[in-house]
């Protein structure tokens, strides 16, 4: 490290001059220049007195590590905190160089003979980091579910899950670790795994210090406050928006052929060119409408016939303008591959590079067996790579993924098609980032990517020290609305919100540990912290609303209120009756064209309901009616009575167009001004059906015809104005036979007579008064709901769920009534990689006893496979039988949970176990070659490998569980299973190790 000495002078200069002394409780902006500025803040635990020692920078001591470059202010600021021995949260963009802080922390610990733990959310990332640290410091170990290297080293790189279980097991490491580094801590908001971070942070040893590295989060201060509170130590926040290379954001309209700069490198939004870009959108033709429901983006890849696809044009342009290397993000593995295939005609590498690529590729593939080298994924990849085009997604073989990463870093890949996973972790920037799609599927539905995700992914654009600026290109199509784009480009990062939830494994581990209590964990959770924070806010709101409510004074409130409630009752009854009469079952035969119908006018103001007995209604003529097509396919099986219908009615409307070109139609009374138009209405907007039918002209397109028809309607209305329009009688005409109908209608009659008794109804100001009363009622309702929210956040979050889950554990015999673990509970403590209850119930029911090892492995595959596959063939009969057994057990577990008042959807839970890869895994356990099992299933190679690796993890946990039970036969069986699946390409070592 001799060469660094020269720079140390500079570094200490930095410390003295640029950096204001830390640990003053105020915001300080770095003074260098605006682009590099960072915000430094400190959170102190309550009642903490900052010690005198820490305010003085320790000038005398030599920094634990010196860097061969000048540190950015945020880096030296963070390192200052480390030197003072205080925890720090660093929130900055991916490319900003957070690793420097981690490196310094590690160096510091090694110097002080302390241990340091580095956790990251992903195994692959842990491997990469291990390699990075190992090159820098030699005393480094690695622990992931797959590999363990030198667990006694001073610096341990591991996944957060491993760190969590180490804390539960009381590993020696937790007594020796001085600093814990949590990388990518914003993973805490992950729905499934985020809770692991919370557990790990809450349970971390009280005397250790932390380094949190996170993407930019707006509520970093809140997080730091939480850490300070839970660990009773100050926690610094260093926040920066700074990007070493500024970004330019462009829009590429689909079907168009140019880029439009919408946000320049200064962060200014260019409204004019944004509008131009939108205007350049080629409108979709009618035939393309089918592309909705998620398939719409296919236009992107297919392209108009005879023409190059958009993506091809785009990449060509990028290469021509020398914007390469480029990363093209898309949100599905299939799409990724498909896009790469579009590039078939392109060659971006020269011959020298091709030779290099081939050498690197085959030397990496050397660890594979000959059979595995012939895998289609392997052999198809090389030609693509040689042309400078790469694909990177989780469906790839891990080894291929790593080769591609290496090739990309070496600059041999000019154009990489990647999924979102490429945007986290190791520094692998490109000059340009392209978003081929702006919607992603998040498990339930398609949604726009959030500004936070956009920020994370666009962080890959711009190589520090190479590019002057990074380029971000957004490919948009007609579906996109301007506000969405704007909020995506200009929006702030996603807030770090807790995704805390309970699991049985967590509960049992907490119960087993004598010093812990699940309640304490809940109390200390970030979730609770955030809920507590909201209380003062809610209180204020409630107070304001209460004042407002009390300021409303109404005369004769009592009688008015009685009248009001009467009205409400009347309305709801009317609605009931209408719902019965107008249910498709009764009214369908009467929806003939030409029938006059009474419909509700569109309310001018949605908030204020009318307060007379009569709703504002108008009349129209039925033109047609049709069934609403639902999204689901099983819609066709529905009976006609159950389906939804819309009715096309000709009536008087006011049609307005807003600036975007969307039409809003308001139905108005016939006498008002407006144009005659046909509107589709749901059944619920129909008030009643008359017995009168008109003859309607066949062609309604000319507006005069419609006008005339409406005139006819008015005439009819006039004719019947005295005795009222003859309506279809529900019982006589429509044959409504329902006791509820009869009851409701008799009640209505009774109510109607009651109205007359109310003198107040005749008061001239009745409407205004009722409106005021209604407002008051609304306020009361709001106050009540706020108070309820306050009560729930004051009470321990998850308290009821905790109770319910403990009930489940007691019923299934995992814990005793006094919260002490039964022997069964000890077993579940060991299982964390699969659904613990179902798995242990299966074991305790002796399911594993009879079956063969291969079948066992195959059965367990259902626990680790989560992707949903369409139309896979059913597994063979023995396996099917086993799967049925698993489903039975799962259903039983789910039912017990439901009965114990845990909120759970039984069938959803049961179907979360997927039999899709049973056959493949069975074959693998039988000793088949990998290419053979790939022929059995349709899944991605990488996904299958990941599943089998996780399966091995589960088996290891089961071995421990069998040991705890004392059943040696099971233990031997699980061990045999591990031996059978742990071989060849599936467990090929990472290239980073």
């Amino acid at each position, binding site marked *: 490290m001799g060469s660094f000495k020269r720079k140390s002078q500079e570094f200490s200069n930095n410390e003295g001059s640029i950096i204001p002394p830390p640990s003053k409780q105020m915001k300080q902006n770095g003074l260098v220049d605006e682009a590099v500025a960072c915000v430094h803040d400190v959170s102190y635990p309550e009642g903490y007195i900052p010690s005198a020692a820490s305010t003085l920078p320790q000038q005398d001591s030599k920094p634990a590590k010196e860097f061969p470059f000048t540190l950015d202010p945020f880096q030296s600021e963070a390192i200052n905190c480390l030197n003072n021995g205080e925890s720090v949260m660093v929130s900055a963009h991916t490319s900003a160089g957070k690793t420097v802080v981690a490196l310094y922390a590690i160096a510091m610990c090694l110097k002080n003979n302390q241990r340091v733990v580095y956790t990251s959310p992903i195994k692959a990332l842990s491997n990469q980091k291990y390699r990075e640290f190992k090159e820098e410091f030699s005393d480094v170990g690695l622990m992931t579910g797959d590999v363990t290297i030198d667990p006694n080293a001073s610096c341990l790189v591991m996944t957060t899950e491993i760190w969590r279980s180490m804390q539960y097991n009381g590993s020696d490491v937790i007594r020796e670790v001085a600093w814990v580094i949590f990388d990518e801590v914003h993973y805490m908001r992950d729905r499934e795994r985020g809770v692991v971070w919370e557990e790990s942070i809450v349970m971390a040893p009280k*005397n250790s210090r932390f380094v949190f590295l996170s993407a930019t989060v707006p509520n970093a201060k809140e997080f730091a406050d939480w850490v300070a509170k839970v660990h009773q130590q100050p926690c610094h926040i260093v926040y920066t928006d700074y990007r070493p290379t500024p970004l330019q954001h462009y829009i590429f309209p689909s079907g168009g052929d140019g880029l439009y700069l919408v946000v320049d490198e200064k962060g200014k939004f260019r409204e004019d060119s944004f509008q131009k870009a939108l205007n350049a959108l080629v409108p979709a033709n009618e035939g393309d409408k089918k592309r909705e429901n998620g398939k719409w983006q296919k236009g992107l890849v297919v392209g108009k016939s005879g023409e190059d696809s958009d993506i091809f044009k785009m990449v060509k342009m990028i290469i021509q303008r020398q914007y390469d290397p480029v990363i093209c993000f898309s949100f599905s593995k299939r799409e990724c591959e498909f896009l790469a295939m579009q590039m078939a005609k392109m060659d971006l590498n020269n011959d020298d590079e091709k030779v290099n690529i081939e050498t690197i590729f085959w030397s990496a593939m050397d660890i594979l067996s000959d059979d595995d080298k012939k895998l289609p994924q392997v052999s198809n990849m090389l030609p693509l790579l040689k042309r400078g085009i790469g694909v990177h997604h989780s469906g790839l073989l891990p080894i291929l993924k790593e080769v591609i990463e290496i090739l990309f870093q070496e600059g041999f890949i000019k154009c990489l098609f990647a999924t979102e996973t490429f945007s986290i972790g190791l520094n692998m920037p490109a000059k340009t980032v392209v978003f081929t799609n702006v919607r992603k599927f998040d498990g339930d539905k398609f949604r726009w990517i959030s500004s936070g995700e956009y920020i994370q992914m666009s962080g890959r654009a711009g190589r520090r020290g190479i590019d002057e600026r990074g380029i971000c290109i957004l490919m948009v199509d007609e579906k996109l609305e301007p506000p969405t784009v704007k909020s995506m480009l200009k929006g702030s990062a996603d807030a770090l919100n807790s995704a805390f939830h309970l699991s049985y494994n967590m509960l049992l581990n907490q119960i087993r540990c004598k010093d812990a209590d699940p309640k304490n964990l809940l109390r200390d959770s970030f979730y609770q912290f955030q809920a507590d924070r909201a209380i003062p806010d809610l209180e204020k709101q409630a107070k304001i609303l209460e004042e407002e409510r009390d300021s409303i004074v109404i005369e004769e409130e009592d009688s008015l209120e009685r009248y009001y409630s009467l009205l409400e009752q009347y309305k709801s009854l009317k609605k009931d009756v209408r719902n019965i009469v107008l249910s498709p079952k009764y009214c369908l035969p009467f929806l003939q064209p030409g029938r006059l119908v009474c419909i509700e006018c569109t309310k001018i103001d949605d908030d204020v309901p009318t307060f007379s007995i009569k709703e504002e209604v108008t009349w129209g003529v039925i033109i047609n009616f049709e069934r609403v097509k639902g999204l689901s396919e099983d819609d066709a099986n529905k009976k006609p009575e159950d389906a939804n219908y819309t009715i096309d009615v000709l009536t008087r409307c006011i049609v307005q167009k807003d600036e975007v070109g969307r039409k809003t139609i308001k139905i108005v009374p016939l006498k008002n001004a407006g144009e005659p138009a046909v509107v589709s209405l749901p059944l619920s907007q129909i008030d009643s059906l008359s017995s009168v039918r008109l003859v309607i002209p066949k062609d309604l397109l000319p507006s005069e015809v419609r006008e005339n028809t409406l005139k006819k309607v008015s005439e009819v209305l006039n004719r019947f104005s005295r005795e009222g329009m003859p309506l279809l009688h529900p019982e006589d005409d429509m044959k409504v036979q329902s006791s509820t109908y009869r009851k409701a209608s008799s009640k209505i009659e009774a109510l109607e007579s009651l109205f007359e008794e109310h003198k107040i109804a005749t008061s001239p100001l009745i409407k205004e008064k009722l409106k005021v009363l209604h407002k008051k009622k609304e306020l009361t309702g709001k106050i009540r709901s706020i108070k309820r929210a306050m009560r729930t956040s004051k009470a321990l979050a998850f308290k009821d769920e905790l109770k319910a889950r403990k009930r489940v554990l007691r019923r299934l015999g995992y814990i005793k009534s006094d919260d002490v673990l039964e*022997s069964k509970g000890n077993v579940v403590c060991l299982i964390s990689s699969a659904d613990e209850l179902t798995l242990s119930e299966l074991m305790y029911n*002796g399911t594993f006893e009879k079956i063969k090892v291969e079948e066992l492995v195959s059965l367990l595959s259902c626990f680790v496979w989560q992707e949903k596959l369409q139309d896979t063939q059913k597994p063979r009969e023995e396996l099917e039988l086993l799967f049925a057994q698993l489903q039975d057990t799962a259903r039983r577990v789910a039912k017990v949970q439901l009965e114990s008042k845990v909120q759970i959807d039984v069938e959803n839970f049961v179907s979360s176990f997927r039999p899709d890869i049973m056959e493949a895994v069975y074959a693998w356990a039988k000793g088949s070659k990998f290419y053979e099992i790939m022929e059995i299933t349709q899944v991605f190679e990488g996904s299958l490998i990941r599943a089998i690796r996780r399966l091995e993890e589960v088996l290891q946990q089961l071995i421990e569980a069998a*040991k705890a039970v004392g059943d040696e036969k099971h233990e031997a069986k699980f061990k045999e299973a591990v031996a059978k699946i742990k071989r060849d390409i599936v467990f090929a070592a990472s290239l980073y190790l």
Partner: protein
Amino acid sequence: MRGVQLPFSNTQKLRYERALAQLESLSSKVNTNATVIVADTIPVDEDGALKGHGTLDMGKKVVATVCGVVERVNKLVYVRSLRARYKPEIGDIIVGRVIEVAPKRWRLEINFSQDAVLMLSSMNLPDGIQRRRTAIDELNMRTIFVENDVICAEVRGFQHDGSLHLQARSQKYGKLERGRLLTIPPYLVKRRKQHFHHLDQYGVDLILGCNGFIWIGEHVEVKDVMVEDQVNKSDPQNTHSGSLLGSSEELTSTPPETRQYICRIANAITVFAALDFMVTLEGVIEMVNLSLSLNLGVDEMLKAEFHVLVAEKEAERRSTLTKRR
């Protein structure tokens, strides 16, 4: 069953037997024919039973390898041994005695079939600093525990070599001083959430180790290192005097009343053990209070009369329990 050898008078014997008979009638009959001795065959379902601890699969039949009661959980069959040595479970609180200071570890006697191991790295250092253990720490091990010290710890689990490891997660574990160690059969201590008890009214700490080692000692305030650290930082002078105070406190001996209470509690537990009753905090406190209200001397608690009283009380307590159900 309860082989108590005491010089009972005739009336005492009668009362004692009546109490026992009452207890007998109250105990559940569920497991009465489930008791096995070594090599007894255990009936199991044919399809897929798990054979747990204390059983051996002989191909056609399953036999017991220990004497005890057959327990079944779902399809798991295991034998819970009676009157055997302590069988550790992860998370148990135990009390043990140091028998050897070995490299990087202490060996402890905890009434298990092997010695337990407490690694130097499995406990917090006296200074509370998180760091790797050095050779100097190893040399200083004797300043922490030496042979015959009584220690309280938590069972961490079995290592891969089959040895049993202990750990001390926080400051409340560690050396126990100025008190009395009592050993009773481990099955008389029920696993509960709480094994540390501070009996405020007597100024006594009671630790019911799951291994049947019971510690009764003068109450010590658990020092929280964190708090002390902060005090240290904010006011260095104060701590100095504080540590002085601590050492002077150590010099003062346990007051005689506390010693009496310790003995009273110990005797109450001894009586429970002699009668083969589960030792619970509530029971112990009740018996101590009984002895106090009867103005019994400490030594009188070990005499026949008190045994009979305890047996009667227990019978009474259990019958009210069953009635309430």
